[in-house]
């Protein structure tokens, strides 16, 4: 196996891919956000139940490649039980990591997510790893603005 392949598909990523977290649908949700990368066909539906300031539960339904599925699974694991501010900071940090900003930091306990750094070596796959996080950020924005219109579809693909 070449090293760069293993850099992207690290064991922790493959573990999330094989048994993704956050796959249990929620009875009710006050964040609902969809994302799609049309050229890969990665699709994600993210719903979360926020109580007060805390993300109590999250459901991530991701159909796509190993990277997008693993990234969504890590997201589900990372945000549950955290405050909205923390969640936003984490999502922004992940976005920075994937865009190559070396100094972006994550809370220590989220070392799984650090493994996504390896995706940087495969530029065309960065958008796969980004999709869940950008969809989450969009969901947070919507909640903040108390928007109910979910018709906007998120994408991390570059516009033509």
């Amino acid at each position, binding site marked *: *196996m*070449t090293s*760069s*392949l293993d850099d*992207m*598909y690290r064991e922790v990523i*493959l573990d999330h*891919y*094989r048994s993704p977290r956050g796959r249990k649908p929620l009875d009710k949700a006050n964040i609902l956000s969809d994302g799609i990368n*049309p*050229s*890969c*066909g*990665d*699709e994600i539906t993210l719903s979360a139940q926020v109580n007060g300031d805390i993300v109590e539960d999250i459901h991530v339904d991701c*159909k*796509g*490649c*190993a*990277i997008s599925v693993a990234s969504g699974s890590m997201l589900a694991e990372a945000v549950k039980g955290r405050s909205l501010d923390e969640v936003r900071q984490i999502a922004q940090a992940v976005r920075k990591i994937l865009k190559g900003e070396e100094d972006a930091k994550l809370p220590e306990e989220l070392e799984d997510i650090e493994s996504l750094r390896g995706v940087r070596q*495969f530029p065309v*796959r960065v958008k*796969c790893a980004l999709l869940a996080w950008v969809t989450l950020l969009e969901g947070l924005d919507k909640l903040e603005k108390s928007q109910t219109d979910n018709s906007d579809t998120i994408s991390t693909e570059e516009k033509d």
Partner: protein
Amino acid sequence: MSSKTKNNIVSTIEPPVELDVAAIRADFPILDQKINGHTLVYLDSAASSQKPREVINALLEHYRHNHSNIHRGLHTLAERSTEGYEKTRSHVAQFIGGVPTEEVIFTSGATESLNLLAYAWGDLNVHEGDEIVITEMEHHANIVPWFQLAQRRKAILKTIPITVCGHLDLSNLDTIITPRTKIVALCHMSNVLGTINPVAEIAEAAHKKGAIVVVDAAQSAPHTTIDVRALGADFVAFSSHKMLGPTGVGVLWGRSELLEEMPPFNTGGEMIREVRFDKITWNELPHKFEAGTPNIAGVIAFDAALSYLDKLGMYNIHHHEMEITRYAFERLSELDGLEIQGPQVVEDRGGTISFTDPVIHPHDISTFLDSHGIAIRAGHHCAQPLMRVMGKVATARASCYVYNDKSEIDALVDCLKDMRKYFGV
């Protein structure tokens, strides 16, 4: 001596001559390299083919010794360039079945050829309420220009559906192609399914209703003998870069009586006869459609690509690819659950094999294969409507050409087996 099969592929009665793949590979310098530590296995020729030394040398030769602008200069280099450029035109005319040279128009590629048609023929002839018929298996290049034309002219875009086996469903052709149909545009061979379409049969139905027939031959011209008249086509588009030639060169062939009545598409230099501020007259065919300085070097080197194909023989090439495809079907069947899209009968298709794994996403397949030096394409292949019909978001696609052999299919299949172990799903 030749006879036509139902798919309009001219088959000679003589048995095919087997290609000497080892010798051919030696002509393609790019193939002699390691990718990620492995010998390159190039199975992405449906996206773009590699180039033999003859083509690369023709480009070099042109720029080193012969380059000038064409058709205008009165010096030696201008004559050489013009002669080389026009020689390719004659070669193309002969390559597609012996048509008049002035019916061959050089474009930047099949995409531009189809856009030219949609504007120049379409805007002139398609009116409100008219119909444009395409098929569900078209590449975006043969969808979007017609969609836009339909929008401009308030016309109706209709599609010929496909069957579950990946053939065109012609059972309702009579109701799809009607007296209001002005254009029937279809691919000769699908870039996803590999299906070879019965163009002549559809062309006959279209002509009965008074429609013209536009054939996207981007996927077939590199692999089979093309006789545009036998296809029953009015216009045919294809690209040089998929058939051993340079990028940025395409062909639009059209019947001269249709080309004559069309206004120009691009305007500027070269395409005029006389320009005054109150009146402009167009140049004669084919120059009317070749405004500006074309891809001179590319067109000249395309001649070398056609010569290379001539030398191998299109019939032999087609036979070679059928053999590889047959072998690929056999070997890919070793992978449980792997689904090959499109016709399962090798005789009905070309050497473009789209497949899906029940679990592993095509992009993961492609990344894994690439790490082992194997180049395939993954994605929607610029055929999103077809993907929707197939119920897939994407497929992996391996496509073969003259330089591929069975050992590369072995490499592919072995690597796919390793991939399943690696992902452990």
